[in-house]
């Protein structure tokens, strides 16, 4: 029977790899996802064929509970809440790894051979960090807790101390340390480490955090595979560990930050002086507000309008109205393009997903490097609920926490119209000099309502 299982596992590996390969293109991605899902189904069925499988009613209970919770959650979540949903699903995966390691350790009475014990301890630590870290990421994105960086007493030193303690206890367990609650203590320390590592990180860095935790969960699954002598866990876990690491690096690169910087730099949390927080740095702090009718006129008589969408558009669910406005402008002969910053919204590709939902053609969506040279000939840059990704301070102000992050050069266009709910600062908690620029006008209000008003005005012209 084990040969059959191994054969089916190989089919599952092919499905995972082929599925991931097809996720590379928008046309094949849907199939790719289902091929990977089929691989997962095969891997589960194959595992259930193994001789040592027992306790069927408990297995059924676990599978049913998971399905009953997972399916409605995935189906009912709003598109804007996708990032935190991914964080949550990632977290439970890590939690599962930690619980399995604990149960295995308990069952063996703490006596395990080193080739099982070492990967078990590793998977317990990483799984627990991933579970608690992901839950904090979820809570921040869901705004259950503040998205701002939370300053912990001790700061990075506390995280370092917890890391040393957790790793030290892990090594001690591998070296033979054993008392009654040693494993729960390990899980607890790793949990506190996970909380302490993610709490100080501001919302702008959350995509990098979720991606890192995703890679970590993959690695912990691979370690669990070593402990359980199971190739399916090892291969699938490692595939995710490797891909997640690359994705994390790409995201960090897009923000010109190293991964170490994200976790230990404390976006706007260190130092205590957030530039622009006080009003006496020489910048004229008056903003010009404008009306929907005025915006409509400026847009209608422009040659090139570049729409810069951000999280505000996602929250307001304004993407369809934005697409309608663009269509109305195009009918009048105005060229409309969309400037997509790699980290606009809460995840890379967040804006692309939303605009694709609103049937905006692909070729209108321009990535940062393609659109930045175009701003010089842009008549109106229409910033819809984007903030930090347009902040010129990233280019010029060496004291700014986002200094060095590549931004969209909207300030190079002839005029800028910013749609914003209020004058509050962005998710990163940093002031944006763009708003005080001579050629910038602000249109305050909910993005969907504002765009709707502008659209109505355009149609009357």
């Amino acid at each position, binding site marked *: 029977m084990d040969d059959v299982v191994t054969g089916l596992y190989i089919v599952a590996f092919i499905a995972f*790899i082929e599925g991931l390969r097809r996720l*590379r293109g928008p046309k094949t991605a849907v199939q790719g996802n289902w091929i990977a899902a089929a691989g997962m189904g095969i891997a589960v069925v194959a595992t259930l064929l193994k001789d040592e499988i027992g306790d069927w009613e408990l297995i059924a209970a676990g599978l049913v509970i998971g399905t009953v919770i997972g399916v409605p959650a995935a189906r009912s979540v709003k598109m804007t809440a*996708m990032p935190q949903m*991914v964080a949550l699903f990632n977290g439970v995966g890590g939690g*599962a790894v930690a619980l399995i390691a604990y149960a295995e350790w308990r069952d063996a009475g703490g006596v395990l051979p080193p080739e099982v014990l070492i990967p078990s301890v590793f998977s317990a630590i990483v799984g627990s960090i991933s579970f608690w870290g992901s839950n904090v990421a979820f809570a921040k994105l869901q705004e259950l807790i503040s998205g701002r960086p939370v300053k912990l007493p001790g700061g990075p030193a506390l995280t370092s101390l917890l890391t040393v303690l957790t790793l030290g206890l892990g090594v001690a367990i591998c070296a033979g340390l054993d008392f009654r609650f040693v494993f729960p203590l390990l899980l607890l320390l790793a949990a506190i480490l996970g909380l302490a590592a993610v709490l100080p990180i501001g919302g702008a860095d959350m995509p990098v955090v979720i991606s890192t935790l995703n890679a970590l969960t993959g690695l912990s699954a691979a370690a669990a*595979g070593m402990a359980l002598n199971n190739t*399916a866990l090892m291969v699938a*876990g490692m595939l995710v560990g490797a891909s997640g690491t690359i994705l994390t690096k790409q995201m960090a690169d897009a923000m010109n930050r190293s991964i170490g910087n994200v976790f230990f730099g404390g976006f706007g949390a260190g130092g205590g002086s957030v530039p622009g927080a006080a009003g006496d740095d020489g910048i004229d702090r008056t903003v010009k507000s404008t009306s929907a009718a005025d915006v409509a006129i400026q847009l209608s008589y422009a040659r090139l309008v570049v729409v810069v969408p951000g999280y505000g558009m996602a929250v307001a669910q304004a993407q369809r109205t934005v697409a309608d406005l663009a269509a109305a402008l195009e009918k009048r002969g105005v060229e409309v393009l969309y400037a997509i910053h790699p980290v606009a919204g809460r995840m890379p*590709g967040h804006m692309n997903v939303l605009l694709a939902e609103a049937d905006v053609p692909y070729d209108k969506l321009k990535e940062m490097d393609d659109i930045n040279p175009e701003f010089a000939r842009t008549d109106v840059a229409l910033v819809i609920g984007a903030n930090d990704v347009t902040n010129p301070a990233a280019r010029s102000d060496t004291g700014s926490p986002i200094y060095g992050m590549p931004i969209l050069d909207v300030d190079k266009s002839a005029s800028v119209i910013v749609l914003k709910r209020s004058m509050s600062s962005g998710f990163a908690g940093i002031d944006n000099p763009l708003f005080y620029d001579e050629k910038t006008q602000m249109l305050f209000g909910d993005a969907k309502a504002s765009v709707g008003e502008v659209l109505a005005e355009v149609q009357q012209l």
Partner: protein
Amino acid sequence: MDVLTEFAILVLAAFVGFEVISKVPNTLHTPLMSGTNAIHGIVVLGGLLVIGTADGVLNDVLLVIAIAFGTINVVGGFLVTDRMLGMFKGRGAAKKPAAEEGGS
């Protein structure tokens, strides 16, 4: 399986993951993260394997939770990814702007 064989498998899998993923366009990063996220739901297998041999009520409870967690990770992950990707599929076709939720 000896430890060296295990390491060989891990190293090869890491390289495959690296090669397959490094060519994904920016646009598909969110679905990709979600898709890989679903794949590490493979941890559910760990729960299935251990629950048969583990004794004791607490172990059973821990493992049922672990299987449930793993299942949420798998089914939720693949469904959410599919919904995200569905957004790319219907482009060009006339869709009702009134529908708030893209159906799944």
